[in-house]
Every structure is written in C-alpha cells, then in structure tokens.
C-alpha cells in the first residue's frame, strides 16, 4: 500500500469501486479530464456517456430507483454542474440516493471567476441532502465514502462532491470506508416501542381504518414492502398508495384502493376523507395528496411512520408519530399485532368495506371509449394488458399521460415504477428509462411520454442508440401540453395560452434519425398491433400514439378543494375554488 503512489483521480475511482459502484453516468470537460483519463485505463467502472448532464442525473435516478442502489453522476465544472441542478432537485424531492461528482477549477483559482468556474456548493446547497467541496487531498477518500453513506442512509437523497482539478491530479492518500459511526449524522431507524404499541391499539379499535403508504416503504426496500403487504393483509384493512408508493402493495390485491390524491381514485380519496384511523407509512402529506388542508380527513386519528422527523406535523398534525425505518417499524408492528391476540371490530369493518365497495362501484376511472379516435386511457389499458406478467419497468414524463399511467398501470412489485413525483420534471422519463435499462438489460423498459415532455431530453435517444438500449418510448401524442390545457379549460375560461405544441417533429422519422424504430397508431384498432410490434422489437422504439386532443384526466380534486369535492368527469363542473388555498397552488 505504502509504495502505491496514487493521484486524486485514482483515489476517487478506488473509493467508488470500494462503494460497490459499477456504473457512472457522465459527461466530460476540462476540470474532470484527470478522472476521464483514469477511467480510460481501468475496467471496473462502466461509464455511460449521456448527451446532456440533465440526462445523467435522471438516468442515475432511474438506475437507483429500479435497483435500490446509489446512482452515480460525473460532470465537469461550471456548465456541467449547473446542468445537473434540476436532476438534483428532483432526486431531493423524491428522496433518491444519488452521488454527483462535479469538477471544479483548481483550488488556487476558486473565487477568481476562472473559466468554467461556478459556485457549485453554493448553487447546490438547497437542492442536495448535503454537499462537499474537497479542499485537501487528505480529505478526498473520506468525503467520497461519507457521500455514499449520507446519500443512502436515513431519508435518501442527492449528495454533491465538488472536486478541484489540482486535487484530482496531485498525490493523494487512500483510505478505506470507515466503520466508525458518523460524527453527527445518525438517523434513527428503530421505532419507539411505546408509540408502536399505541398505534396498534388504535388500529385494533378502528372502525373505518385506512393504510396510506408512500415512497418511504419503497425506499426502505423490497422486504419492507413484503412486511407492509403482510400487515395490511393481517388486518384486512384497505390500503391506498401515493404516486411515489405505487408498487409497495400489490395493485391486484382486493384490499388495494388505487392511488390517492389529486388524480387518485374516488374510493381512495373518500376512504381518506371518512376514515377514523389513518395509518400513514412513509408518505408525507404532500399538498397533491391532502387537497384543502382544513378539510383533510377531518375526523381521523392519524398515525405517521417516517424516517425523517421533519416530515412529522409539517403539513398535517398527527396523533401518533413513529420515527424510524419503515421496514423495521413494520416488522415490530406485525409482532405487536400478533401479540395482542385481539381481532379488529369485524362488524364495523364489514360496514366499512360495504361503503368502500359502493364507492368502487362508481368506477371512477371509466371513460368514453371511441372507435374513431384513440383515447389515451385506452392506449394505456392496452399497454398494461399486453405487457403485464413480463419483466417490465415503467417511467413517465410529466403531465396527463403520467397520471393516466399511474391510474391504469398496475404494479405488483416495488421498484418497477419511476416517475418524477415531487418536482414534476418534464424530461425525466427518457433518461430515467435509460438508467433503468442499463441496470436491467433484458427487461422491458417503457417511458410513457407526452409529446411535449419527450422533447425536453430527446437528445438522450443518441445515448440509447450508442449503448443499444432497447428502451421503448410510448408517446401519448395529444399535440397539447395536456395538463396545462386541462387547467386552462377548467380554471382560465378555455384560453389555451401557449399550451398547443406547434411544429412537432414527425416522431417516426425522429426515431429513425436516432437509429431507433418509429411506429405510429392513429386509430383504436391499430393500438394492439403497435404495442405488440414495439414489444417484439429488440431495439429502441418510439411509438407515436395519436390520441384524443381534448381528453381530460379524471377523477380530479381541483387544487384547493377537499377529497369529498372530487370531479369524476366532464359532467361535474369545477367550481371556482372557494378559498385562496387552491388558487396559489401550482
């Protein structure tokens, strides 16, 4: 060891390998040339060259979310670093573990407005879980190891390590990952036994209970999802998922109510409104879920399990807060439930399910089928029908198509559904799908896209071509920023200001230009054939599904309305929100 003289770049790569990294999504530039030179001379790390740094972060997110591992990004200083800001914010909002290595000008030039200098730690401070500027060679290995620990422990998130070029070139000591606990960051993992007992007592006494589960369960891991499924089945209680939580409980289970929130199901939202005991596991009472806060589940006792103490009582005051890792808390809750040897109130539960079944009977996701024009919902129903049972992963862009995908695609397992939930980043889905496909080369990876969103990171088709990734892009092409148009229709008198997407490319030709296969469906009868051909093609495909331009996404809780004020279809007219709460929402 002692004889081995390493430079900073070698130490960096050695630390990455020690952290189990296999893939880096990156883009080179002056400040990181020493790292790229070392990458050239080794075989342990695979580098995926994206076409824009924004794509690198989303790809790393897709990789992380579909594997449960940390996604790694490498970009240069200045513009390389500023291009990753959206992706970092996205990963922060959705609690995705990402380590982003940014080049920086040499230490002695920092603060001089040097060429391609940006205050990367300053810019990324509010959009990372934590960030570091490496100032001494002696700190490099420790910081890299620490960055991985911070990114994946507790509530996961993105971490930036800013690397001045001199540090990358100069001699540098290597240190293996430390086994000592972190100086100051030690997230709490085990739930408080008394609180858990309290929670179980409340659950046993419940007459109208509901489980409300989110991305925290998925982040805790597949085991946590199995434990959740067990607990929900043991209790016999209904369960709804947030958009981030889809897949943590099997969608085909009869206890599943579907997604909740603004475009959630009638039964899920009404169950939330009328429940007497709410069991929130790993969800954060986001405004898209709660609707108008003053009317949110007004008569329930609320139990909240979260690994992040700052999620507790942030938007909604809760009665029993349990800080801890979802998996560990679920494990203990199952034990406690069994130890009680009591049964929930069977009669009350039966009445509750009867009520829920009545809500279900409204069939809130129904839509008017047409022979003439493809309804976007129909396209997704067929996509689900023709792909279910396969090894399939879905990513999405942002808009109506995203919500329809969340409603119509049924996820039986975690880590199969990747969507930008918190930030709502158009342009997320294509690079995310690319990251998923890198991690799962043989899987069927589909980006459900809108024609507007897909253009935001379309350059990644070139990356997809380079690495021969058979990613499928399923565009629901309505020629509108559909979600924007829907709001303009409902709230702005139908004045479609700048929401028509003019001068769209011919997506079939565009696919071909990128060496992919382009397909198109314009009539409902074409849909199945296009989907089948898409699945059977072993290359990348862009399927341009020309859908109804004016379809709206229902059910919908208008911003600022309550769960009980849901609109089920065009026949329900949206009232102007009666308070400012909603109008200020985005």
């Amino acid at each position, binding site marked *: 060891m002692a004889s081995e003289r390493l430079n900073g770049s070698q130490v960096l790569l050695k630390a990455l390998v020690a952290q189990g990294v296999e893939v880096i999504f990156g883009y080179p530039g002056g400040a990181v040339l020493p790292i790229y030179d070392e990458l050239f001379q080794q075989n342990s790390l695979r580098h995926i060259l994206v076409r824009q740094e924004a794509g690198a972060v989303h790809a790393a997110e897709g990789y992380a979310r579909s594997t449960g591992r940390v996604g790694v990004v490498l970009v240069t200083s200045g513009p390389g670093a500023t291009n990753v800001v959206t992706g970092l914010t996205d990963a922060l909002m959705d609690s995705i573990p990402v380590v982003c290595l940014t080049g920086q000008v040499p230490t002695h030039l920092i603060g001089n407005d040097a060429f391609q200098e940006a205050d990367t*730690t*300053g810019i990324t*401070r*509010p959009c990372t*879980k*934590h*960030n570091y*500027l490496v*100032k001494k060679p002696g700190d490099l290995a420790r910081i890299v190891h620490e960055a991985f620990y*911070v990114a994946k422990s507790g509530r996961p998130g993105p971490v930036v390590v800013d690397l001045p070029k001199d540090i990358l070139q100069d001699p540098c000591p290597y240190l293996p990952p430390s086994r000592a606990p972190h*100086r*100051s*960051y030690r997230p709490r993992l085990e739930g408080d036994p008394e609180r858990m007992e309290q929670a179980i007592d409340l659950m046993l006494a419940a007459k109208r209970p509901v489980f409300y589960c989110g991305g925290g369960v998925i982040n805790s891991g597949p085991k946590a999802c199995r434990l959740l499924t067990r607990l929900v089945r043991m209790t016999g209680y209904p369960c709804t998922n947030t958009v981030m939580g889809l897949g943590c409980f099997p969608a085909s289970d009869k206890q599943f109510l579907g997604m909740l929130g603004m475009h959630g199901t009638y039964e899920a939202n009404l169950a939330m409104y009328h429940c007497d005991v709410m069991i929130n596991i790993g969800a954060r009472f986001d405004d898209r879920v709660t609707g108008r*806060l*003053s009317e949110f589940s007004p008569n329930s006792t609320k139990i909240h399990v979260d690994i*992040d*103490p*700052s999620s*507790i*009582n*942030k*938007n909604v*005051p809760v009665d029993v807060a349990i800080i801890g890792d979802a998996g560990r808390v679920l494990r203990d809750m199952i034990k406690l439930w069994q130890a009680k040897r009591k049964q929930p109130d069977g009669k009350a539960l039966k009445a509750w399910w009867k009520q829920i079944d009545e809500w279900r009977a409204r069939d809130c996701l129904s839509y008017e089928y047409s022979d003439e024009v493809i309804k976007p919902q129909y396209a997704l129903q067929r996509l689900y029908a023709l792909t279910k049972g396969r090894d399939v992963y879905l990513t999405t862009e942002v808009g109506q198509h995203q919500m329809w995908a969340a409603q119509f695609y049924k996820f039986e397992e975690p880590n199969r559904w990747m969507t930008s939930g918190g930030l709502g980043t158009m342009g997320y889905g294509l690079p995310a799908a690319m990251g998923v496909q890198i991690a799962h080369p043989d899987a069927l990876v589909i980006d459900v896209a809108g024609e507007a969103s897909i253009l935001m990171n379309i350059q990644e088709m070139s990356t997809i071509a380079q690495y021969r990734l058979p990613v499928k892009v399923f565009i629901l092409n309505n020629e509108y920023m559909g979600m924007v148009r829907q709001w303009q229709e409902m709230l702005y008198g139908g004045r479609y200001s700048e929401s028509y997407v003019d001068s769209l490319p011919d997506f079939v030709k565009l696919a071909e230009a990128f060496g992919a296969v382009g397909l198109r469906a314009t009539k409902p009868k074409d849909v199945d054939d296009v989907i089948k051909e898409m699945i059977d093609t072993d290359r990348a495909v862009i399927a341009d599904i020309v859908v109804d331009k004016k379809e709206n996404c229902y059910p919908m809780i208008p911003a600022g309305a309550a769960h009980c004020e849901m609109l089920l279809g065009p026949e329900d007219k949206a009232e102007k929100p009666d*308070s*400012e*709460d909603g109008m*200020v929402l985005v």
Partner: protein
Amino acid sequence: MKEKGRKVKEKVEEKVERRTIAVLVDNESGVLARVIGLFSGRGYNIDSLTVAEVDPKEQLSRITITTSGTPMILEQIKAQLDRLVPIHKVSDLTEGPHVARELALIKVTGTGEQRVESLRIADIFRARVVDSALDSFVFEMTGTTEKLNAFISLMEPLGLADVSRTGVVAIARGAGSL
C-alpha cells in the same frame, strides 16, 4: 411569512411564540450558509443569530438563533435544523430555565448637558465607557435584549449616533451541557 393559506385544526396553534435555539455544529465552511439558507428557503424568521467556535479541539461551533413562529413552525425549524448533516445537536433553550445575554456598543455624540445626562443614565444601566472623545462616548453594555433596547431608546434623544449589537447568546441554567 410563507404560511399563507395554511390552516391548522386548532386555532390556538396559530399563536406566534419566540424561541432561543442553540445549535452545535461542525466548524466547517458553509455550515452557516446551510443554516441561514434553511431559514430563508423555508420562510422562517431569524430575529438574531450568533456564531463562534466553542470547542477548538473537536472543531465545534455554537450557533444561537432567536426565532419566532407558531408551535408547528417552531417544531419544523428544530426538525429541519437537526436534519442538516454537520449539525450535532439542536436544543430549544426556551423549554427550560436559561440565561440569555447580548452585548452592544453604543455611540452617543453631543456636548454639554446632553453629554452629562447620557453618562448619568449609562451609570444607572451599568454601561461602561470604552471610548471617549470631546464630543462622543462609546458605551459597552451587556444584558438582556430588553435592557439593551431600553438603554438605546433612552440614548436616542441624547445624540445616539451608532449601535452595534452581537445578537443573543444563551445557555441553560444548572449543571447540564448541550
């Protein structure tokens, strides 16, 4: 405040309280920016903030923040601070008996009767003269925020020219440490 449109079940919860929070942090670059960025980014108030290294061996600094908000916001502030990686400990001193002090340097200019009067009041308040010229004094004074406020407002008509204050530092009473 960013609380616009946020309604909480119990109306009593809306009452705004003042708190003094002590935070033990790694003395590394950027840590203060993290704390301040947290407050500005989330729309919390900072009434005063002081910081200095308190443990050179362990390289720890102590930040004292006085802030105000509803109980829900105050709970958020503490939880959000605690979440920052280089923060070791967050303690709400207002929850128990504690001592809080501030230091101020106060410049008063004037001659004749006014000058004598300012000196007389300074004496009552136990402010020390740390600089004196023919037509000015600089007083140094330590005390609670309220006491400093009172002194400064008395100086106003007597030629108050400049004030520099440290902001509050505070510590819990009794044997316990942070």
